[in-house]
């Protein structure tokens, strides 16, 4: 399986080249085109390897992952499928290794082969109230994961501590611990500062950030839109 990324960083497209017998599982509606030799199966949360109904629902509702996924399998010969997210921005491929999981901000996940398993990581009540989708998907196993970002991607090899705005986080490896905290010591100051909740990340590992914040973009555009009619 090979990933080819084009049109970076503004409107990145991923071309996933599959050898005969290989398969990739992708988020619903991320497929743009595919060669005709690929078999497509749509799986709900009950499918084998997706961890059963409750876990699947948990991922969909909490993790930002789609409820249904499509699996593209090269049955006859080799083939390829092209994938892209809804918003403008870059894509990246991270190789998950045994013993080093990847924690993914829910809406950043695009695709992975069956050798990689996804599960929801509960963030505690603070994550729940932060207003951002602070539910991480934990990717374990051995294989590549395709992620999307809103904006360009900054890779940081962390060794120490960094304070990160939750809306700019894409993913990080499991050697990094995180703590949800207010941006300022006080709640009112945090609200006025516009930063709300931030993550304090510590440890050693890799961290991927996106240069734009989807919810800030939503506020910038959405606050000017006419109110929805009931």
């Amino acid at each position, binding site marked *: 399986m090979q990933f080819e990324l084009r049109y970076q960083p*503004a409107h990145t497209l991923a071309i996933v080249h599959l050898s005969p017998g290989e398969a990739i599982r992708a988020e619903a509606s991320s497929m743009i085109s595919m060669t005709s030799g690929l078999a497509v199966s749509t799986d709900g949360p009950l499918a084998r390897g997706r961890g059963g109904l409750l876990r699947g629902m948990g991922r969909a509702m909490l993790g930002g992952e789609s409820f249904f996924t499509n699996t593209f399998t090269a049955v006859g010969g080799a083939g390829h499928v092209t994938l892209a997210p809804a918003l403008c921005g870059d894509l990246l491929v991270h190789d998950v290794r045994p013993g080093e999981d990847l924690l993914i901000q829910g809406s950043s996940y695009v695709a992975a082969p069956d050798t990689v398993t996804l599960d929801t990581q509960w963030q505690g009540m603070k994550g729940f109230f932060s207003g951002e989708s602070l539910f991480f998907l934990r990717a374990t196993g051995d294989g590549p994961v395709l992620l999307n970002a809103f904006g360009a991607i900054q890779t940081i090899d962390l060794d120490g501590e960094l304070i990160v705005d939750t809306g700019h986080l894409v993913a990080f490896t499991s050697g990094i611990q995180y703590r949800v905290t207010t941006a300022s010591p006080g709640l009112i100051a945090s609200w006025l500062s516009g930063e709300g909740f931030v993550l304090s990340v510590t440890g050693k590992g890799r961290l991927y950030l996106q240069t734009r914040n989807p919810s800030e*973009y939503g506020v910038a555009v959405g606050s000017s839109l006419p109110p929805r009619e009931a």
Partner: protein
Amino acid sequence: MQYAVEHGPVFAWLRVLLAPGDVLQAEAGSMVTRTPGVQMDTRLNAGRRAGFFRFIVAFFVALARKLFGGETMFVNEFSAPGGGEVVVAPSLSGHIIGKQLGGGRRLFVQRGSYLASTGDVDTRVRFTGLRTLLGGEGLVLLECSGDGEVFVNSYGGITEVPVDGTFVVDTGHVVAFDGTLDFQVGSVGGLKSLLFSGEGLVCKFRGRGTLYVQSRNLGALVDWISPLLSG
């Protein structure tokens, strides 16, 4: 203070290295990361040497705008007694440029284009009409003065226009302009063109100085999306 604009011109962000004593003032909500030694203080953007009355007026305007969903008038000040680094980014896709002030030069920045400025720059909000107070169309400007650097962000690319004489720009495309330029907000022609030309309000500049224009317009994006929204 050292800085770098990275990931431009489409998704630029600003990385600033803070030496002890340096202060970076940045738009509320713009922080991406900061190192643990960096302190953040939230302040009302009433101008550094604002009197009591102006402070009170700015306070109520700020509160109203925060509650009604407009842009906030709060800014965050980042400082690092032991040195540190802070990264800030705007909300929309586009670029960032830094402009050095000093020697009495002032820069007017469209409210939504202000990203950050260094500690010795004073930023004051200037309203160009009552309607802008309530978040309507028009031009809300920040008057930047003092010695230091101002960082402005654009929606789209930034064109630097050396004006000598007169120049007309759609208000939605104005990023910033030198204080040496006089300006007037009006329609491009008469009432007919205001209603039917599709150009809305324009800013007419006169004098000699530099003008920064962005290649996209948030108001135009909103106008394009609005009719597509279903209830």
